[in-house]
């Protein structure tokens, strides 16, 4: 190997390499830059709200922009009901499915089931909303004998179902990480398989299950199209159990439905950005909480956070 050949190669190599490595570094911090950028933009377009609309107006119970009622409470409550309901429903179902896959199902069932859950993760939300609207809502209307099938309840069911791949995936990881020695100890003591799961494995995976719950919440709160198509879009503050079976409106649906019609720079425009900012902050908080619970698990769950 001649030295001059080597030298030539080295010079051009270092120059190009330097550029490439710089580009890689820039890409690395891109995530931080983008999050900050998004946050700043939401603030930029959202804060004029507080100059144009008094706080009492924002915390009112009437959302009717055409007549300049900008009460956010119905929207926030709508989102809360649907989100918490979905998380509460999806957690036991997802956990049960994960247990089923891990402990009960024979191998051939498992091999069919897992790809199918991935299929579920891939179905676009607009398709689920479509079917929910055309098929599921009428079913509910008839079955429960209520005026319309487009209700918070319908939204909860569909959202819970959509959050399942995330919850199942995290729950699976949780069940996996409980050491085999725990189970063996329980079986050696004469416990049935179910007792081992219920008394040993699940309590051991407590923090992971909590994280699954939070990720499910995060998933549900950000869902837009499905809720827009099945929750009826009536901006009323839900009170009492009966309203659970009535239409509601979420923050996400509000933005999606009304943004197309607002004049740029109008109070309505700014308020919608404020709603967006609220969503950003809520999901930020939920995600930080979930991340702090079990940092390691998030990587795999991110893939499913669709």
């Amino acid at each position: 190997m001649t030295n001059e050949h080597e030298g030539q190669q080295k010079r051009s190599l270092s120059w190009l390499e330097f550029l490439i490595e710089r580009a890689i570094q820039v890409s690395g911090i891109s995530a931080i830059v983008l999050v900050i950028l998004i946050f700043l933009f939401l603030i930029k377009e959202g804060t004029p709200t507080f100059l144009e609309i008094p706080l009492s107006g924002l915390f009112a119970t009437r959302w009717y922009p055409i007549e300049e009622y900008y009460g956010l409470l119905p929207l926030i409550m709508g989102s809360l009901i649907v989100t918490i309901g979905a998380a509460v429903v999806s957690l036991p179902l997802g956990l049960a499915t994960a247990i089923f896959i891990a402990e009960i199902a024979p191998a051939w069932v498992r091999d069919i089931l897992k790809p199918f859950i991935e299929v579920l993760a891939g179905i676009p939300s607009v398709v689920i909303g479509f079917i929910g609207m055309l098929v599921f809502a009428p079913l509910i209307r008839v079955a429960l004998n209520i005026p319309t099938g487009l209700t918070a309840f319908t939204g909860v069911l569909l959202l819970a179902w959509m959050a399942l791949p995330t919850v199942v995936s995290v729950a699976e990881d949780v069940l996996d990480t409980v050491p085999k020695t725990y189970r063996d100890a329980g079986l050696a003591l004469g416990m049935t398989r179910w007792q081992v799961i219920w008394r040993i494995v699940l309590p051991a995976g407590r923090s992971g299950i909590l994280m699954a719950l939070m990720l499910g919440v995060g998933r549900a709160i950000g869902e837009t199209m499905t809720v827009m198509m099945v929750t009826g879009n009536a901006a009323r503050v839900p009170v009492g159990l009966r309203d659970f079976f009535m239409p509601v409106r979420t923050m996400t649906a509000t933005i999606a439905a009304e943004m197309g019609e607002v004049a740029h720079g109008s109070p309505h425009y700014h308020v919608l950005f404020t709603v967006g900012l609220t969503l950003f902050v809520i999901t930020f908080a939920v995600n930080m909480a979930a991340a702090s619970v079990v940092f390691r698990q998030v990587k795999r769950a991110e893939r499913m956070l669709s």
Partner: protein
Amino acid sequence: MMRPKLPQLSRQNSQRIAFALITLAAFVVVAPIFFIVGYIVYEGASAISWEFLTAYPYDGMKAGGLLPAIVGTLWLTFGTAVVAVPIGIGAAIYLSEYAKDNALTRAIRVAIINLAGIPSVVFGLFGLGLFVIFLNFGTSILAGSLTLGIMTLPVIISTAEEALRAVPQSFRLVSVSLGGTRWQTIRRVVLPQALPGIITGVILGLERAAGETAPILFTVAAFFLPRLPTSMFDQTMALPYHLFVISTQVPGMPERIQYGTALVLLIFVLSMNVLATLIRNHYRKQRFW
């Protein structure tokens, strides 16, 4: 007063009941998947024809084909890839091969988690505010691609990083001991070995972007645009948005066409899923580490 004793279930019976409930739950979870896909196929298959896929719509969308929507979705998917793939893979390489264990790296990871959790409609707002209005791109494929691209970034970064980390450390050691620089090692050994995993992740990320509606609502989508886009500054139709509009805002829309549109979207998206799985399985068999 003593509480009456409840009948004790034997442990075996408890297990049977519990397992039965769990199986029921799993069934409740999985059965609807079959149902939804099956029902859409059942109702929509009759609408699918060569004309449906290649003609332009007319009569206020109530007849004709989906060509502009299909082409629009293809363009947006391509645009998303252009934005998200280079930056995403670059960031993944940074995290896997260059980043040290310090505060900056932790901040990057936190940012990625948060980016992944932002609601899609908030991305739409951001896209509207920054690309459409502030940078004056207007509602365009450019604005839509940038918005979708940023939204897809976390997924690509995560899966690409995982693929890179899976490559055995010993390969890197050998390459360096033979006089390789860090970048040479990445380019010649690590990246090629991680490529199947990276490609799988990219396809899954793009699959998600193709099916999204909220981010394109205000940044690119048009409803009735019976011509194909000619530049990236054009608006375009898109399949998810199209489905949304025809099912909620067009009175008298034939249900057959609605289901047909849903079916086309479903096929588009799920075939990407299948492609990604095939690639992943094929290369998993081939590698020896």
